[in-house]
């Protein structure tokens, strides 16, 4: 606890609990090298190394790793892990339904939508009158490819801080897609290569294109095929998708086309099959011009699956939590904001999470 974070006349709840006979929050969940650990429940949340029992918030590879003995996650997250790592990615698996309480060694655990990607969840951990919500990665902007975030009242809210600086303000995704379509109309002889993370972002971009009335086939990189097919099987209509292979057409067939692939592919020789491509990148990082410039991005699309500054601060208030733990990202700014608002906050130093998911 940082001294300065606390008003002297107002001890944080976590420090009062032992006196009141309720559980101290840091005894319910605390960081260990493997990840966030719950001693009474004997489980980890999103562990970065193989453990006995893992609760997984969502399928991005820095949160969902293979090799755990048992995994508890939403069915969609389990499906996605199966697609990425093969069916034997864990010893045993159990599917959690949103809102349903599961008791693990006397600890009440429940999963709630996080609005990050398909299947993503916040995990609520409740024991002896103390409830902590580990949000995992989340966002508040509406996204047709996953269930929307639900604020869960709690004592301690663990928030991500990927975009935890006041400079990160994501515009409405519709506006960004409109700029992409405008550029495609302005440069009909060129192809637009949209870099988007293979799980979540890519499918969201495709869905946004469809919602904006783009009905031509979208060409996709091979790395996106399995996951996009899975999204379609879950009832998320992405329209006609075609592999962006040379066999599927000559170079000229890609003139005017929108191609979606993982960002790394565009620096690769793979990209040579497209005529004079315009490189686009769908990411919250594209808010910063220099990031776009350094990456050689000509058309930055500020589309993020993480909460921006305004969403982070609004969510913290909405949960009513008396204490905030801030993890992966720019912790110091969000901790500072909490101080100014009179909310106890501290950075939670977890290792092994990258910002690659955006």
């Amino acid at each position, binding site marked *: 606890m940082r001294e300065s974070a606390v008003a002297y006349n107002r001890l944080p709840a976590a420090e009062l609990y032992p006196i009141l006979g309720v559980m101290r929050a840091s005894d319910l969940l605390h960081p260990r090298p493997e990840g966030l650990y719950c001693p009474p429940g004997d489980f980890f949340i999103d562990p970065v190394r193989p453990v006995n029992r893992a609760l997984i918030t969502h399928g991005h590879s820095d949160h969902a790793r293979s090799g755990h003995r048992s995994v508890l996650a939403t069915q969609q997250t389990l499906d996605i892990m199966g697609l990425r790592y093969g069916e034997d990615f864990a010893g045993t698996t159990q599917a959690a339904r949103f809102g349903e309480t599961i008791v693990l060694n006397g600890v009440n655990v429940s999963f709630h939508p996080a609005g990050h990607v398909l299947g993503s969840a916040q995990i609520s951990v409740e024991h002896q009158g103390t409830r902590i919500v580990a949000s995992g990665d989340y966002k508040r902007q509406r996204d047709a490819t996953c269930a929307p975030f639900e604020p869960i009242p709690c004592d301690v809210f663990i928030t991500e801080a990927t975009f935890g*600086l006041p400079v990160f303000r994501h515009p409405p995704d519709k506006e960004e897609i409109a*700029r992409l379509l405008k550029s495609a109309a302005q440069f009909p002889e060129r192809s637009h290569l949209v870099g988007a993370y293979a799980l979540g972002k890519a499918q969201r971009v495709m869905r946004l294109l469809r919602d904006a009335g783009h009905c031509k086939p979208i060409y996709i990189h091979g790395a996106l095929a399995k996951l996009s097919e899975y999204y379609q099987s879950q009832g998320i209509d992405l329209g006609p998708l075609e592999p962006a292979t040379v066999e599927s057409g000559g170079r000229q067939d890609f003139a005017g086309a929108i191609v979606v692939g993982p960002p790394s592919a565009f*620096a690769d020789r793979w990209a040579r099959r497209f005529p004079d491509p*315009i490189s686009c990148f769908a990411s919250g990082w594209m808010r910063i011009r220099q990031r776009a410039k350094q990456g050689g991005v000509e058309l930055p699309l500020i589309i993020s699956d993480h909460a921006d500054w305004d969403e982070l601060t609004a969510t913290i208030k909405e949960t009513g939590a008396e204490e905030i733990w801030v993890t992966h990202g720019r912790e110091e700014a969000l901790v500072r904001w909490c101080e100014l608002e009179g909310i106890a906050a501290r950075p939670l130093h977890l290792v092994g999470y990258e910002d690659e998911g955006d």
Partner: protein
Amino acid sequence: MNRFAELLDRLVLTPSRNGKLTLLTDYFRTVEDPDRGLALAAITGDLNIAAVKPAMLRILVTERMDPVLFGYSYDYVGDLAETVSLVWPQTPGNIPNREPTLGEVVAKLQAASRSDGPKVLAGLLDSAGISARFAIIKLVTGGLRIGVSARLAKQALADFGTVDITEIEELWHGLSPPYTALFAWLEGKAEKPRNTAMALFRPVMLSNPVGDGDLEKLDPTDYAAEWKWDGIRVQAVAEGGIHRLYSRTGDDVSGAFPDLTEAMQFSATLDGELLVGDPRQATGTFSDLQQRLNRKTVTLKMQQQYPAFMRCYDVLQIGGEDLRALPFRERRARLESFAGTLDPSRFDLSPFVAFPDWQALEELRRAPPHPIIEGVMLKRWDSAYVAGRPKGPWFKWKRDPHTVDAVLMYAQRGHGKRSSFYSDYTFGVWSGAEGEEQLVPVGKAYFGFTDEELKQIDKYVRDNTVERFGPVRSVRADRDNGLVLEVAFEGLNRSTRHKSGVAMRFPRISRLRWDKPANEADRIETLQALLDR
């Protein structure tokens, strides 16, 4: 305002010239007056708005948000205008129904006095969204830095109206923002604007390079030859007491050369080369001339140390008489008698080079008598002065380029067609004592090779990468490993900005020397010797 903001954002990230032209013409087509004209003026640097200092911007923002949070933000972004545009707090309930137009923003900024400037700016930022705020801050802090020259903007106007760029250049200095009459003409809705202003720019005549076999078809007696001086091609216009010096693309550069414009006590339009020195004694080198370039203002000391003068090539007008239709021989005769009336410390005539045949001229071209000569010019005796670059009447025949063998050090990914190729190369030469040689970068080039060679270099870069920094890779380059590039260049300048102390002019890859071991590439002393010549 948002359309202007979007245009700025697109332009700054679009590297290709054609891409920029498309963005600009689309903007002119879809945006109405006066916004499009004001945007044009902002891009060409012709929009007059009282500047707001960065320090004031910082005060305004920290009055509205926690300075610690602002500090974190600024540290992360690194650019003040961008940071402020992003963090500026939007008060709910204070958001207007629609964002202000560029015209409204410019009107408010221009009407603001120096003292209420910051208040007006804050009010505008309150009423705008993130992109518009960025554009507004760029307008008031000066310098858009979007990689669009005034020349490119004029080309976009020409494309938009399907007219020749020389027509735009000729009109330009008589027009002012928001250029409503100009746009009306370009859209075919009105007559071409008539220019009544004094001392206007006249589009210049340019030459073509001598190609293989060109000269065999030409009769040497049809042509006059002059040295091709390696200064700055300028047009000096004096009319009705107004003196203007224009670059060959019609940019007004008078402000940087007050010593020369003061000496323009005549009524005429002259075409020539801007050089430094005293024409009666000695002509300065390109390095000397460089001291006077790219300056908005110039100190008295600088004017005394490197006085500017004009070496005259041609005359377009004397008094009210337009001479452009006359043959070169007659214009030259008029110029010779006119030049006699000019200040001899500021004006002289570009001398003819006598030659009996092409072979003799070839020898003169190879060994010019002064380092600031970069070849010879050939002009048909009977050629009229016409705008643009007609094929036939004028030729430039340049000295052969210098070459140096350098080692590839860094490669950067290109854009568009080249976005998956490492196509921009930084190369270096050896420096340091024997046994301790190190490569020092001397330049960067991104053309001169064939598509096939590009593929080969790209493969070499990928196979020999040592480190990556974003789109840049550093390539293995030491005494025993490295790709030697033969680099051709037009000249060398002294540079304090580059570690090597030299900067190449117009470098390009002339040959790939797969056969040459890296340790046999040239040394820095080879280049330094060129500087001292």
